[in-house]
């Protein structure tokens, strides 16, 4: 019998937990958590990447190299759409050139429908029963949904905590708990317990706080290291953060192009690739709901989001919503981001005062 493989998923917020569940159960591999992304990871990634490729390529390549160093031999990648769909072959070639012997598993090798995913699992784990496959899918999607609900609550309220850091602590406990779960029941129990605890955390939220919406490309909005902890900095200023784009969302609405185009109204006629159609749709929706400001974040040279920007500028003009644009590459400094957020915050306060008068 061949040795069990050791798999690794790059760091994208806390989503390596559900992905690990999936890999363990249906692909029958051991999993390893890649070391936390640091500046060193970035340097490593950029050194071996093409110069002007989009930033997630560099981040994940750095993650992979560090994971290989501690024993991973199988790299998991959800390669689909835009440029991401071609990452796997190029990254594999680069890693092989560096002398690493690795295997790359694209979760969507045979398409992103259920049959395609099942077919892929079968190739790696021929003994897989369909019952277990369905069960695991259910477990993973439920976990992601619970995580997203909790994170959404935290995003909206963490800025108004009376005692700093309490919510984060509770959420970390929840994550530690679900790591070992194999059943939905267990995850649900933990979710109910910790969500109740979260709601008990004392907050001091004014009736009409400043509300800011975040849109952008999926990787950069999900991964805090990729966006210089922008959400944390916003929360510290006492801002309620709205971010309708989550991973849950990716399973559902993002697949429905027609709905998204309808939501985008006159700003888009065709789908513009990546998840940028969604950025426009959600920005328009938030603008209609009288949000105070929108922050658009993207990885450097993200083509679909650049296309979205031309539509966002019109939304900004038509609905009189200020939009702040950020581009994150490997050289972006957190201080610079902080300064721009501060200025944006000041402007929102002044705008608020003017409207009250």
């Amino acid at each position, binding site marked *: 019998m061949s040795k069990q493989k050791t798999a690794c998923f790059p760091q994208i917020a806390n989503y390596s937990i559900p992905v690990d569940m999936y890999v363990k159960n249906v692909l029958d591999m051991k999993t390893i958590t890649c070391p936390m992304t640091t500046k060193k990871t970035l340097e490593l990634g950029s050194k071996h990447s*093409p*110069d*002007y*490729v*989009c930033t997630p390529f560099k981040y994940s390549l750095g993650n992979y190299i560090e994971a290989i160093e501690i024993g991973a031999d199988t790299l998991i990648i959800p390669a689909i759409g*835009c*440029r991401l*769909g*071609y*990452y*796997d*072959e*190029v990254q594999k*070639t*680069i890693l092989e*050139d560096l002398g690493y012997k690795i295997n790359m598993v694209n979760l969507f090798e045979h398409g992103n429908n259920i049959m395609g995913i099942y077919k892929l699992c079968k190739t790696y784990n021929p003994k897989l029963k369909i019952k277990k496959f369905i069960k695991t899918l259910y477990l993973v999607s439920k976990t992601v949904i619970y995580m997203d609900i909790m994170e959404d609550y935290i995003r909206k309220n963490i800025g108004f905590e009376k005692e700093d850091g309490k919510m984060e602590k509770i959420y970390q406990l929840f994550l530690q708990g679900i790591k070992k779960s194999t059943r939905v029941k267990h995850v649900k129990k933990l979710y109910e317990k910790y969500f109740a605890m979260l709601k008990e955390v004392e907050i001091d939220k004014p009736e009409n706080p400043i509300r800011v919406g975040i849109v952008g490309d999926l990787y950069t909005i999900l991964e805090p290291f990729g966006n210089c902890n922008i959400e944390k900095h916003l929360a510290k200023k006492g801002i309620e953060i709205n971010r309708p784009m989550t991973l849950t969302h990716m399973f559902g609405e993002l697949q429905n192009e027609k709905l998204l185009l309808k939501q985008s109204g006159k*700003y*888009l*006629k*065709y*789908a*513009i*690739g*990546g998840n*940028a159609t969604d950025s426009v749709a959600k920005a328009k929706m938030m603008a209609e709901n009288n949000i105070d400001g929108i922050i658009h974040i993207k990885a*450097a*040279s993200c*083509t*679909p989001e*650049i*296309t*979205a*920007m*031309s*539509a966002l*500028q*019109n939304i900004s003009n038509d609905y009189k919503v200020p939009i702040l644009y950020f*581009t994150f590459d490997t050289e972006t400094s957190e201080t610079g981001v902080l300064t721009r957020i501060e200025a944006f915050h000041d402007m929102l306060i002044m705008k608020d005062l003017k409207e009250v008068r």
Partner: protein
Amino acid sequence: MSMKVGIPRALLYFKYRDMWINFFRKLEIDIVISPQTNREILNNGLKYSIDESCLSSKVFMGHVEYLRDKCDLIFIPRVAKTGKKQELCVKFFGLSDIVNNTFSEVKILDYNHDVDKRQSEMKAYLDLGLKLGKSPMQILKAYTYAFKCKLEKDKKRLDKQNELLLFDDKLKVLIVSHSYNTYDEYIGGPVVNYLKELNVTPIFADIVDKKLANKEANNISEKIYWAYNRELLGGIEVYKDRVDGIILITTFPCGPDSLANEMITKRVKNKPIITIILDEQDGSAGMITRIESFIDILQIRKARKIVK
């Protein structure tokens, strides 16, 4: 009804010119094509584009700006996917939306060629013709005529290139770049002209038998799904043994090229390769120096081979 349709001489124009021009001519539609790119067009393109867009799309915006007050409709089709492993860069998905959001008064004439949405090429042209108020019979005739013209022209170009490869004993360099860069007189033009000045014959990777190229591309990359990059990779495989060196010309920051060029430099061995990245900064001195020294190297290599 005399309606004038403006065609920007950028991006897809260089892929579909024979098709479009003949199609419109057969349907007796007046067309106006913007001139070759010049500094003014580029400057206007820069002015109306998002900073981070690629140079080629900025040039496109310049051409749209030029046509803005010279026609009734501007022709900006959407070509997204033309077959299996034949996709276009996402930039092409949103071209008409970018123009629509940038110049709100411009009226756009388009068709949507996207096999994932059951929009085949013929269906797309049918939609286009109906928008122009023609009958299906007329449209079909014009489409077949245009398609035939395109095939003929393609064949002529291919034959000419094959002749050069056979009978020309000058130094030969393969130019690997998207058609909209190579044939744009302001973008790829200076490189091509300079090569000719140096008495070097340029061979173009995109003038190649499409079917053969599609197959050969797998030697460099099996998975790549961008139609134009696939064609170029195939072109490299087909011509690499008959040329002395390869020049990759890329406009900054081209998404597909960023990955495809990495694969080329990693997989194509035993042939000198140079990558030239063009951006909106004027000044060709850097480019000229690099090409000159590259050609020098090729000449030395060739001379050595003859001596051996």
